[in-house]
């Protein structure tokens, strides 16, 4: 029996880790782990999840496990996949071994869309958004500044592991390119173009998760996600302010 409990815990923690690393809400992680454990016959489990770690224990036994989450990224499709697997486990479709294999397969999956596709998406999204605010003549210049900003963010984030600095730098690059284009006479409406270009950096997931975690009563997780969103917004604002001040 203890061996089985160990195995169930292993699967719960793997599922929780995958979800949390990919940007799932903490209440969803706790809920999923509890459901998986219950479907495998471990009904009295407790979990405590924060954005940086998972604690999981089973009542009536001596086992408590803890794992640290150090790398976090945004990959909503992995959250959806793990969610789907948890549903299949709950409906009794997947055995213990099957669930482990499926989760390990998800763990091996590469991160979402490749970088060039994401950069292209960010460029086009910036262009669309700038045109939405200011008119179609913003489209082409924002394509350049938005794409460059996102690419610089990804590159900077690989070299320097400080996320907020990478965001600051990317916003600075976006603003700088827009200013250069203004002085070259290509653009006139600097504001809407800068807004469009930094749009892909906006912490949409952090805002959503902060609100949803706070609603679910996960105060610590909600506040820390809120702090993340606030710091990101602050970093973007500082980057733009930096550019405006040297204008």
């Amino acid at each position: 029996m203890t061996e089985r409990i160990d195995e169930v815990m292993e699967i719960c923690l793997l599922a929780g880790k995958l979800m949390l690393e990919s940007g799932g809400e903490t209440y969803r992680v706790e809920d999923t782990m509890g459901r998986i454990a219950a479907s495998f016959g471990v009904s009295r489990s407790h979990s405590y999840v924060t954005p940086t770690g998972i604690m999981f224990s089973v009542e009536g036994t001596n086992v408590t496990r803890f794992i640290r989450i150090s790398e976090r990224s945004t990959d909503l499709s992995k959250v959806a996949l793990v969610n789907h697997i948890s549903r299949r486990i709950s409906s009794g479709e997947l055995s213990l071994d099957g669930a482990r294999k499926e989760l390990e397969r998800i763990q091996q999956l590469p991160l979402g869309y490749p970088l060039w596709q994401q950069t292209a998406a960010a460029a086009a999204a910036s262009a669309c958004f700038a045109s939405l605010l200011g008119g179609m003549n913003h489209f082409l210049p924002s394509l350049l500044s938005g794409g460059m900003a996102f690419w610089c963010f990804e590159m900077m984030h690989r070299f320097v592991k400080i996320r907020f600095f990478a965001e600051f730098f990317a916003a600075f690059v976006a603003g700088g390119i827009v200013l250069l284009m203004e002085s070259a006479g290509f653009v006139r409406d600097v504001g809407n173009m800068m807004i469009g270009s930094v749009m892909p950096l906006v912490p949409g997931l952090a805002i959503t998760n902060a609100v949803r975690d706070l609603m679910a009563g996960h105060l610590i997780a909600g506040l820390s996600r809120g702090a993340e969103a606030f710091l990101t917004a602050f970093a973007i604002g500082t980057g733009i302010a930096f550019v405006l001040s040297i204008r």
Partner: protein
Amino acid sequence: MIVMQLLLSFVASTLFGMIFNVPPRLLPHSGFVGMSGWAAYTFAVRSSVDSVIATFIAAFFVAFLSNAFARRYRAPATIFIVPGILPLVPGGTAFEAMRHVVMNDYNAAIPLAAKAFMISGAIAMGLIFSEVVNQLVKRRP
């Protein structure tokens, strides 16, 4: 003009979905949610509703649609909410506030910053209210 706005917001939200790695088969849905949110916002603003309340209405609408999609497609609601609320983020107001701060014009910056803060709060309140509605709907057998 309106068709162009709808098209642009649809494409923008779909692409935001790509940045957050939304699964490919659900990308059009997140684009649709974003488009509806933007449509609700612009419609409210054009019928001279205050932008804070307009944002609240749009965020409520976005989260309501997202929850409906989440039930329909058995996927986490976050997938649809995140690209949906991005166009509502008060980028313009925050930018203006920042511009005044840089010019040392704090008196002009503070009302703008307060407005940006209120709009962010409106997004949060929209999400909360729609979650309440969602739970009420769920409870009904």
